[in-house]
């Protein structure tokens, strides 16, 4: 399942620069708002669902080579975070849905934990 299909199914808004999302297939899903837990638990190429929206999520996503980050509950993402994500080639999505709902729907779509 590609990021394009996921973004479409969940109605996710892409915050970062346009790119071909049909070419990216997340390996798994992971959710936590504690960055150290993500560091320790998120598999490579996985999709990270979080409420955190500040610039440090980009460093984590880049270091772990995550497929994308879904920022939930419509949390405000500042311009610095988006600029940094574009610089580091990290994909950020936003959704008004809760973390629980996003995880549930991704699971229904067939995405699993790593």
């Amino acid at each position, binding site marked *: 399942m590609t990021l394009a299909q996921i973004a479409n199914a969940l109605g996710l808004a892409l915050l970062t620069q346009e790119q071909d999302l049909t070419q990216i297939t997340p390996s798994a899903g992971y959710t936590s708002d504690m960055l*150290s837990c993500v560091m320790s638990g998120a598999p490579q190429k996985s999709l990270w669902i979080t409420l955190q929206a500040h610039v440090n999520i980009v460093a984590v996503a880049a270091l772990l080579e995550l497929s994308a980050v879904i920022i939930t509950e419509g949390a405000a993402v500042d311009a610095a975070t988006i600029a940094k994500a574009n610089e580091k080639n990290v994909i950020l999505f936003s959704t008004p849905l809760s973390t629980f709902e996003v995880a549930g729907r991704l699971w229904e779509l067939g995405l699993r934990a790593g």
Partner: protein
Amino acid sequence: MATEPDSSSRIITDQEVQQITRTEELAYELKVEEVMTRNVKCLEPDMQMSQALEMFRSERISGAPVVCGDILCGIVSLEDLIRCLTNYDLDALVREYMSANPVTIRYTDPVVEALKLFVTTKHGRLPVVDEHNRMLGILTKGDITMGMLEALQKDFQAEELRRYRASHLFEDIVSDRTSLILRYNIKPRDFTNGGAASSNIKRALVRLGANPQIARRCGIAVYEAEMNLIIHTINGGVIRVEIEPHQISIEATDDGPGIKDVELAMRPGYSTASDSVRELGFGAGMGLVNIQRCVDNMKLESTFGKGTRLRMKIFMNPDASVGEGHSAH
């Protein structure tokens, strides 16, 4: 972009500028003379159109410049030749059918100027001249494509070479003990740059040809050490990474405040982070635990009121390297 009719009136945003491709950059960097075809077959004004026809046929070309001596004075295109043929006028002179004062391009112009001319004039070829209108060559879109492909190929080879040189650094330099030392000064509460040192170290390791898993583990360990310096220290600290062919030694040092109880600090979930830092997603009490998981060897020494020194080692040989950290002491 040149094909968009309103491109000149559009303002390019900073974000778009960042996305300008290497090919677009090359259109500005490459000069016409670098991609043009030299030694072009030329006609002269007093030749007969039948000679032009013969040249087009034998050379398989669809146009040729006309020169007086070495000065460009016209161009004969396929349309000009067809006009001549419809008139059954092959005995006529080239000067009667050529298009005089053709659109030209200077040899010193960037390729992008030629691309603009191709779009605005709809010509298939442009004669290349110098400041005295002397004929130097001819430029087609095909020449530009070939020139760009060659330039991209050169870029690619240069990058390969850099990567090769970096990954053979340790083989090329002979000494009894070769190592590369990277130092990063970390400022307290500098959350904006959090992760910069670890990302740079990881990239250096990949360039040096380290196993990707080892580069990743090193990245995670350094990230946690880096964030600890940002979150907890009074004056920041220093991260020093020594890369040797067989191991990576990482040291994070600071001058305070120091850890009251090292054993407690190592316990998963224990954290002294403030509420404001926790709101950012730090302070899970997993940092040191993560480091331990990622390195082969870890030593944490601290004196409360004085400072902390964290030393870590990762072995380069994947067989010797177990990660999942052995011991805290």
